[in-house]
């Protein structure tokens, strides 16, 4: 089995900010509905779509929607290097940055270290309206209060794909057999997923397009999420948000 480098490409010019990716992620990963007092600071959104704009007023204003999830940093993964519990690991077989909630102490060093604000602290015990727990995904365990959680590229799906491949007598997961829930749900086709090491995949080709960029590329974390947009102002925001108004969620 050759080592993979799973990554995602996101076409910002195609994302309409519908939120299907966020909701699909919550359903897949058993993220409970928010408690009454939860706001955007205490919410648990493994993938969050931010509305960004060019800073102009009304008629000159142009907005875009930027889905931000764990960037699965390949180099000097900040969250992994600060975790005192070794609750974060980078899987060399897949390049996926995983989070093990059973090891997590809830110290939130990783949240402070993450330059993408893509980690979320579980402030509440997981609870669903009566009966709705029947709809939970059996492949993912609900996490307890007091731990940090984040996107893991739907690791349960990776395991399932691996089992399917093994059952079929294959050494490797077939391309397209493993897709995270957000990519599957996206009605606009803005999200693509695949092995960045395989130049035949659409995501590897997207990564090499001239309009492609990564968030905060200059800090050298080698993220595996590639965005693309033909709009200059969107690319500029990716490196340095100008002010609070131009990068609000």
């Amino acid at each position, binding site marked *: 089995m050759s080592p993979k480098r799973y990554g995602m490409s996101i076409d910002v010019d195609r994302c309409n900010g*519908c939120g299907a990716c966020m909701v699909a992620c919550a*359903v897949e990963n058993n993220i409970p*509905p928010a408690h009454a007092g939860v706001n955007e600071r205490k919410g648990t959104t493994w993938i969050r779509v931010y509305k960004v704009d060019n800073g102009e007023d009304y008629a000159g204003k142009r907005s875009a929607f930027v889905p931000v999830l764990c960037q699965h940093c390949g180099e000097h993964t900040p969250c992994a290097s600060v975790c005192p519990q070794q609750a974060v690991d980078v899987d060399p077989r897949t390049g996926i940055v995983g989070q093990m909630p059973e090891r997590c102490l809830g110290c939130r060093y990783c949240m402070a270290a993450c330059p993408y604000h893509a980690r979320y602290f579980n402030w509440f015990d*997981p609870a669903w309206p009566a009966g709705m727990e029947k709809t*939970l995904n059996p492949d*993912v365990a609900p996490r307890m209060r007091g731990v940090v959680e984040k996107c893991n590229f739907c690791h349960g799906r990776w395991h399932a794909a691996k089992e399917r491949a093994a059952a079929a007598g294959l050494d490797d997961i077939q391309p397209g057999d493993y897709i995270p829930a957000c990519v599957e749900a996206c009605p*606009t086709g803005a999200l693509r997923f695949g092995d960045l090491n395989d130049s035949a995949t659409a995501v590897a080709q997207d990564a090499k397009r001239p309009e492609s960029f990564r968030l905060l590329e200059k800090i050298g974390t080698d993220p595996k999420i590639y965005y693309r947009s033909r709009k200059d102002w969107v690319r500029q925001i990716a490196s340095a948000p100008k002010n609070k108004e131009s990068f609000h969620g």
Partner: protein
Amino acid sequence: MTTTRRGLLQFLGGSAVGALFTPAPWRLITDTALWSENWPGIPRPARGEARYKFTNCSLCDAGCAVRARCIGDQPVSLAGVGGGLCPFGLTAHHLPFHPARLKEGPVKEAAAAVTSAIANRGPTEHVAVLDLRPGRTASWMYRQAMASIPNGTYLAPPEPLVAVDLQKARTVLSLGAPLLDGWGTPSKVFAARDQFRLIQAEAVESRTAALADVWLPVAPGTEGALASAVTGEVDAADAARITGLSAEQVERLLNELKENGPALVVDSEMSPAVVDANVRLGGWGHTIGPRPQAPTPDAWNKAAPVADLDKVPNGSIRVLLIDESAAGAYLPWAPIEKKLAANALVVAVAPYDGGYARHAQYVLPAAIYPETMDDIPPAVDSMAATFRLAAPLVAAPAGMASVRELLGISDGLRERADAIHKVGQGLLVTYADGKSVAVKDLKADDFWKALNAGGAWTGDTKLPAERRRDEARRGREESLRHVDPEYPFTVVTERRVAGLCSPALSQIYQESNLRLAPNRIALHPSDASRCGVADGARALIETASGKREVIVTVDSSIRSGVVLAPGREDVAFTSAKVVRI
């Protein structure tokens, strides 16, 4: 060697310090964390073999194909077939467990009251059904039932009379339609998106405006003036004056529609003015045509037409049965109320007690998608007739009611499927294997079984050369409105699926403010400042009809003088004021 007290204490102290450098305390912490992960308060998902069921989503007319992953008989996730799903469709399997759902009601008592009221009403008194989702087979059954009852009246919100083909368009002018945000069938719209240039005329920078090639920020409610400019009813200068655009912008738009054809003009409800504009652009029979209907049995010809509410005499409706089981557009209650007799019996069959329930004497619980057996009217972007069943994924709980049961009629779905099979044209697509089969090669029973197992029938596309001009004109207010100082804002609504939403949508309504939650409005920063409200502040929004408390979002993509509010289209373009609490 003697053991002293000092030596013992040194040993214990040294052991304690040394233990810190062993894995033991970390192991203890890990085990504590593992234990806490499994404490009784944390739900354990049911386990078992995963099976897949297929159906069509009936939350809106797009009717997206759905694959449900089930453990036992319970769906645990929904996904699209051949495309994604919207957030509402993705979480539809949560709806049966919504805390606000009605679980019981006085079904027998209401049925007796309806029977008695129908039997004992006066000779001029009407029995009416209000169907929020016309175009379904259930709607045909209501219309037949109303045709068979003296003074039977069928009421429904207006349906689009036309359908469009985005695949054939090279330029699309959208007059405030949420074209890229749930207006048509998402998979079809986005499959065609790269083929056409999109010009969005709208008062706010909506999701569609944000993704459009050109956004024309017009005054609220004046989008129709651009359709009139296309038909030549107003010239470019007048259209510019009405919309607040420059004459050059309007001229450029008109030129682009003429030169970069085929061009298509759309609005939310495909109003006659928009149809006229498409006819003028030469699109009739090409990019736009009559909305097709799947065949119906010959016996259904005796169906009551959709009644014009204005022509129903005031105070004449003795019995009003409201079907809210399928999400759809709401008609304003005030004009309906005028038509009710003094002793009118109003029965709402609804999955929850919002909507019309507060006006009804009896509110009966209804089954909800994905429990119901229903079909889905053709989508506005389908030029071919379709027949798609929303077959139930889970069984409905006991005690649910339906308007059909109150009227003693069947659902008509099998009869309709047989009528389609009898005509023998078109293709059946089955979702499980993705295969297409000609209907003429199938037996009637197999056709019906395939539809129930998740499939869609699509008829042949037949486009007429000429347009039937039998629909009444229904224009929007297109002039610059007079601003009442009492209500200085114009309400623009952001479309959302009516009815219950999954609690999981807190992801987009509460844990992020990606979409405007039902209790939020958005204002331009200058308006917010004038009203003395800040981002996140509580305020009252007041119209002539009433007021409600909301949370304010300050957003400079909203035009000054406009309030963006989520919800029903019937409150669009009304005047309002915002008061700080």
